[in-house]
């Protein structure tokens, strides 16, 4: 029987309490310290919720990140964020980082947080369990989603980010890391191999093909997570335990956990796999909070 395990990742929707608290902070009616404590407490609560409903692997809920790039960009770039850019083909926007000098690792300073940069609170709050994963945006996506000055060499920007990522992995003692690549290059950036060997990496990469790996054939994360059945075949060939996004993270329709589980078993069996991961398309921040909570409960049952 195929072993099915569930994964939840990325930005989780903020509760009403958090949204209102952030609004107060923006109006200077709540101080940095108080908002930071509130954020950390809320993250712990969300992690307890994931655990309670049986999610096998989950990332930090990232409720103080503003978007998938903002926290890391605040840490690594000197320039402010300005331009609002559309995130893929959605009605959600991110603030585009402007890269004018090669990124380098700095320290997040609480007193420098602004609504445009990052919100107060810890970058990560681990529950120290075997389920917890850290989260980082893929390096290719970071670069593709940014505006890079013409004076800089793209390859060197990628390599600068790689150094930073390896430092972050070491600094936080990351055992498990989910790398999220919604804006991939045609070919896998070869520096990813260093990341794959530094932690147990779950790699969500959109548009997976064998060709993606043609310049980096030996690259092998612990798990490659595909968006559909066709890409799942590539994921199965190129990782230890492949994953597939069967749950729709962009629709409020509530799936039947049994049907999701059956699909996962059928797809895995057809490839003679012993195990696979099931997760969702896109991160849950595109959904209302109450629906995301319900989807977590469904996803937890898929992994049983």
């Amino acid at each position, binding site marked *: 029987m195929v072993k099915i395990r569930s994964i939840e990742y990325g930005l989780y929707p903020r509760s009403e309490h958090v949204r209102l608290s*952030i609004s107060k902070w923006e109006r200077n009616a709540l101080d940095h310290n108080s908002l930071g404590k509130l954020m950390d407490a809320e993250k712990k609560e969300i992690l307890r919720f994931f655990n309670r409903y049986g999610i096998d692997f989950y990332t930090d809920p990232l409720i103080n990140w503003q978007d998938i790039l903002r926290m890391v960009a605040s840490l690594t770039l000197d320039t402010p964020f300005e331009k609002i850019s559309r995130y893929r083909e959605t009605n*959600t*926007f991110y603030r585009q980082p402007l890269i004018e000098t090669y990124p380098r690792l700095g320290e997040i300073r609480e007193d420098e947080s602004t609504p445009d940069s990052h919100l107060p609170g810890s970058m990560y709050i681990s529950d120290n369990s075997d389920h917890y994963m850290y989260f980082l945006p893929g390096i290719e996506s970071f670069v593709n989603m940014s505006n890079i000055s013409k004076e800089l060499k793209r390859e060197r920007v990628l390599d600068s980010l790689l150094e930073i990522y390896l430092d972050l992995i070491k600094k936080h003692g990351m055992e498990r890391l989910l790398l999220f690549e919604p804006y991939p290059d045609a070919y896998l950036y070869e520096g990813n191999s260093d990341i794959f060997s530094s932690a147990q990496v779950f790699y969500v990469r959109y548009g997976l093909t064998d060709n993606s790996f043609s310049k980096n054939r030996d690259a092998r994360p612990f798990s490659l997570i595909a968006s559909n059945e066709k890409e799942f075949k590539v994921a199965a060939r190129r990782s230890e335990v492949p994953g597939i996004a069967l749950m729709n993270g962009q629709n409020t329709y509530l799936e039947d956990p049994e049907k999701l589980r059956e699909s996962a078993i059928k797809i895995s069996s057809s490839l003679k796999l012993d195990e696979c991961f099931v997760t969702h398309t896109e991160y849950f*921040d*595109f959904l*209302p909070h*109450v629906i995301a909570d319900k989807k977590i409960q469904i996803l937890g049952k898929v992994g049983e």
Partner: protein
Amino acid sequence: MKSDILITQEIGSFRKPQYLSSVFRKTSGSELTKLKEKATLETLDLFNRAGLDNIGVAGEMYRWEMYEHVAASLEGIEFYGPVRSFDNRYYRKGSVVSQVKRKNSFHDDELSFIMRNATRKIKLPITGPYTMADWSFNEHYRDKRDLALAFADILNEEIRHLYGIWSKSRSDIFEVQIDEPAATTHPSEMDLVVESVNRSIEGINGCEFSIHVCYSTDYGMLFENGSELKLQGYNLEFANRDTNELGTGSDHRKAFAELKRYWDIDSTKFIGIGVTDVHVDYIEPVQLIEDRIKYAIDAIRDPGKIRVNPDCGLRTRSREVGFAKLKNMVDAVKEIRKEY
């Protein structure tokens, strides 16, 4: 000095005064209406002081948000909670759970009030069918096309009703702006954008229709399909992607480069150019706005075809910042008009 060129206009929303925003969702009936009317009059005064030629509907004080306001007047949509637009800005995205039907008019009270009180041109924004479909979770219709066309039929009904109100006391043209911020989100769906927008205005005479699109990755696809759109103009965003450097050359105004391309494809429509960025508090200097407009005139060569507006609604800025941006926009146009 020609005053009928470079018409200054706003796009739609403006920050609500605190006395209205703090109670909007908690109050109803005549108490809320009085506050909406008060806020509309105050915003109308602000727009008049800024010097706008077209005051829109004075900042959409009757609406909380462009999607939600329409959805609340329809059957078939459930709201499970807000979803994020950017930073800590949210909107309530509905789930279509059954056939959508119009329960009541979305905008007749707002239109009637502004018609009684405005002395300048009016333009009524209305959320377009494609955006309504794209911004809804679809749990009921077979596909997005069916959903978008269902919304188009509803909008057609609403616009006819509003035109009925307009034409009872006005003989001048009724300006309607179809808000389609989602129009270029999915490049493969431009046909559906055209089909649904055209269906929403089909058979309605006596109106000037424009389409508002913003934050597109490629206006080219809009222009290339735009000749099929049966409306009279575009109101677009540009300032967000432009530099703040002065200058009228192509190097300084790269964000506006698509205007030259537009003019080659479809010169029958007018174009409203976004000259001030609504997502930052930076108040664009008059000279910068002048330079942006001059570049546009050079590209399009007919200032009568150009209207001047902010990139989008100003509701994410304070009222003070919004006013300053509009004032500078109008002052820039005044300077340029002296040359004609």
